[in-house]
């Protein structure tokens, strides 16, 4: 199925207007903010579409993120050049159009995002991929693939770059 799809950086050629994933915030983001954030280099936005059409079926965002640590033992600090900050990659948003949900497109986008983050980590140094789950359903989705929570009620989860490296 995915052989007829492509994932590429968002550009003016893409048709974003009809996108509807069921979560208003994610729809509005794509339509009103995504291209501005790309222009300002705050966020990278990747979109999935059929090769024969520019209509967007799904998208995700990647940006750099930091975890601020506190009170760690010296032997651990030594391994962290930017302590107390630890650089990471953030998948801030990931969404699939309603008409295409239930086809594992979200999983496809997640793997694509992990591979991209891993490649980037070679250049910028990143210890983990962080995801911002918007609700309990998406939290379950990420946990299924091994993402861990920072704290009990947090909607932010992480997967270590070491684990992703083993995958790839």
């Amino acid at each position, binding site marked *: 199925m995915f052989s007829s799809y492509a994932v590429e950086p968002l550009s003016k050629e893409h048709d974003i207007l009809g996108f509807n994933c069921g979560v208003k915030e994610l729809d509005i983001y794509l339509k009103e903010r995504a291209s501005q954030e790309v222009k300002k280099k705050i966020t990278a936005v990747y979109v999935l579409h059929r090769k024969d059409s520019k209509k967007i079926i799904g998208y995700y965002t990647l940006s750099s993120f*930091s975890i601020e640590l*506190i009170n*760690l033992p010296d032997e651990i600090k030594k391994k962290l050049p930017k302590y107390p900050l630890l650089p990471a990659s953030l998948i801030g948003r990931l969404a699939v159009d309603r008409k295409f949900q239930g086809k594992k497109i979200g999983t496809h986008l997640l793997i694509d995002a992990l591979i991209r983050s891993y490649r980037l980590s070679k250049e910028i140094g990143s210890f983990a991929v962080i995801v911002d789950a918007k609700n309990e359903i998406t939290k379950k989705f990420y946990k299924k*693939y091994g993402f861990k929570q920072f704290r009990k009620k947090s909607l932010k989860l992480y997967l270590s770059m070491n684990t992703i490296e083993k995958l790839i």
Partner: protein
Amino acid sequence: MQFSQTNYHRLSRSERLEARVNSELKSRLQKAAQLQGSSLSEFILKSAEKTANQVIREYQILKLSDEESLKFVNTIFNVSKPNQKLQSAYSKYRKEVLSGK
């Protein structure tokens, strides 16, 4: 991330920022500025800068507690294998993407 607090006295201020405001809010801002002994514009700039830094922090940084820091770092350095679900999703991705080329 550390942001240095701008010194509004020394800094050359070349850009202009305007905003319309109702009289009630304006007098409240003026009162607050007076209480701190700063001018109205100084007060507004200081407050806006503080909020801006906070917003940037929240968007780009997650602050962990002692316990969370240790737990997180241990997971990061402990090389654990990807779980079964992730592995099969990855192989499926590879197969599908490669078969398209």
